[in-house]
């Protein structure tokens, strides 16, 4: 039975393994192994459009991460700490962007930006990334909120009281006790947002203007044109980048915490 399960898993992983291996294949076609080469990586990294797409992706991811972190952390602390009108409603709907199908999110943003706001598509860099960044914030910040909230749930309120008891005011409590407690969740939330933004295709595709491309969108258009080993190489780079970022998040917050977030 174990062997059987092993075989099934191998089969499930086969496409990914094959994708990575054949990015090093010295052949234009993906089917037969012709020897090891890194030339398709050189080619990919020499592709100006691909590099521009990567820079765009990283820029969007960085901006979306910063905004998500701030918004998500504030939302988490407020939901944890305060009582206010509509709290129940906000609590229930804050994770909506995680649940809603991405195709629907994409359609919604397309209609919103193109039809409603008539958002200009001919802005100069980096302002042409605005619409995409806003869309990415929408689906990233609920993850930050979730990670930070689950961290806050483990906070011992007596620590806050101990700090006050020793003379600390509200701000000192926040700075000296609450922020240090939240730190691992903030780091994990940031890395999570960054990878989610970096990897997103559907929502980006619907919100990007005709001349604004990101790395996943570029890979998509390369595949539509022809499946070359260069696509394999670009995909492999993205996979490795994602895995490294996730591994760091895992290491920083422990396996359980990441399981709670993803």
């Amino acid at each position, binding site marked *: 039975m174990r062997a059987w399960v092993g075989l099934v898993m191998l089969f499930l992983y086969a496409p990914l393994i094959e994708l990575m291996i054949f990015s090093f294949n010295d052949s234009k076609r993906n089917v037969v192994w012709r020897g090891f080469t890194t030339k398709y990586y050189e080619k990919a990294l020499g592709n100006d459009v691909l590099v521009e797409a990567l820079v765009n992706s990283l820029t969007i991811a960085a901006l979306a991460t910063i905004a998500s972190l701030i918004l998500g952390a504030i939302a988490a602390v407020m939901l944890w700490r305060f009582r206010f009108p509509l709290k129940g409603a906000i609590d229930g709907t804050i994770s909506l962007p995680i649940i809603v199908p991405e195709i629907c999110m994409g359609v919604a943003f397309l209609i919103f930006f193109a039809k409603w706001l008539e958002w200009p598509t001919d802005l100069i860099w980096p302002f042409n990334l605005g619409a995409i960044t806003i869309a990415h914030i929408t689906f990233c910040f609920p993850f930050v909120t979730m990670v930070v909230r689950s961290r806050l749930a483990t906070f*011992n309120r*007596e*620590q806050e*009281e*101990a*700090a*006050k*008891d*020793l*003379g*600390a*005011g509200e701000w*000192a409590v926040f700075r*000296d*006790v609450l922020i*240090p*407690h939240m730190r691992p969740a903030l780091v994990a939330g940031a890395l999570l947002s960054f990878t989610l933004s970096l990897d997103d295709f559907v929502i980006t595709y619907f919100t990007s203007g005709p001349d604004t491309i990101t790395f996943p969108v570029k890979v998509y258009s390369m595949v539509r044109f022809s499946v070359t080993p260069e696509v394999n190489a670009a995909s492999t780079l993205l996979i490795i980048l994602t895995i490294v970022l996730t591994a760091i998040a895992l290491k920083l917050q422990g396996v359980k915490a990441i399981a709670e977030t993803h």
Partner: protein
Amino acid sequence: MTDTKPPIIQIQNVSKRFGKVTAVDDVSLDIQAGEFFVLLGPSGCGKTTLLRMIAGFELPTEGRILIDGQDMTGIPPNKRPVNMVFQSYAVFPHMSVADNVAYGLKIAGVRGGEANDRVAEALELVKLGGFESRMPDQMSGGQRQRVALARSLVMRPKVLLLDEPLSALDAKLRAQMQFELSELQEKVGITFVTVTHDQDEALSMACRIAVINKGDVSQLATPSDLYEYPANRFVADFVGSVNIFEGKLTLDEPDKAAVDCPGLGKVYLNHGVTGPHGADVWIALRPEKIYLHVPGEGKAVRAAAQDAPEGYNFARGKIKGMSYLGDITLFEIELESGARIRVSRPNLSRHDQEDFTWDDKVSMHWRADSPVVLLG
């Protein structure tokens, strides 16, 4: 504990309600400077709420609290001259021991040499010298508690509040810390106010104990008065082990009293009770104040007759349960009335515990100053 100094803490008609639940119900208490004061009661009795109101984490619904003569109404926790040791210790996990202890000083603006000296002194006091750079997760529960103590003591508060300080420690460590806390309190001379649900802890550490029941002070007394002269059935039962029998007051003169208990028999006391004749009362009798005698009741009757009229302070029964605990043996005895009574007997010499066994018929007597008459 002198009456010439004003009380360090005055609790005046304080009530606290959470919604419809009354946690603390019109409590008034004075705590004297320098005493080791204990709030004792079962869980949910309101004792922790009372402590938290002194610290300022809860606000009284009614009444007011004065610390060192100053009304604390409207003064937040960070401005009060008291410090608290929390049940979970609440040591800051991301700070070293020294940083934990120095935290209050840093907030107060005490820095440099003076801060270092006071931190070192506080750590010495709780026997944690040399642990300065240790992180809390490298320490045992007992050590973390010492950090919490040092962190509070370094502030030189007028009053130190302790919320169930020993409940998270194991039995051996708890016994040791009881001694150490008493010693520490004597050394620093700060007023300690401790909350606990453990009567042994309260009896062994306190100068005075307030027994709290359902938000109210049931009795306020020294440990021995609490144990020997409980004011009511709740205190008698909660503090120590006790046998309680219902009875009717048949005699009440200034120097003697008698109660007729259907369950136990006729009880004689060598002091008066201020109760109406014929009133329904309860007799409380501690297990260790009952003497067991081997079958043949002459001895028990004679022993009882030394300080009581014949026929009083004497009972017969049969051993239904025994619990040998080494230093003492507990007996559960069925009286002739069918009621059960618990008797404890010290094993002062090696063979004491062999005197009695299951199903033995025994007789008992107790001294005329042992029973307590309870009116409520």
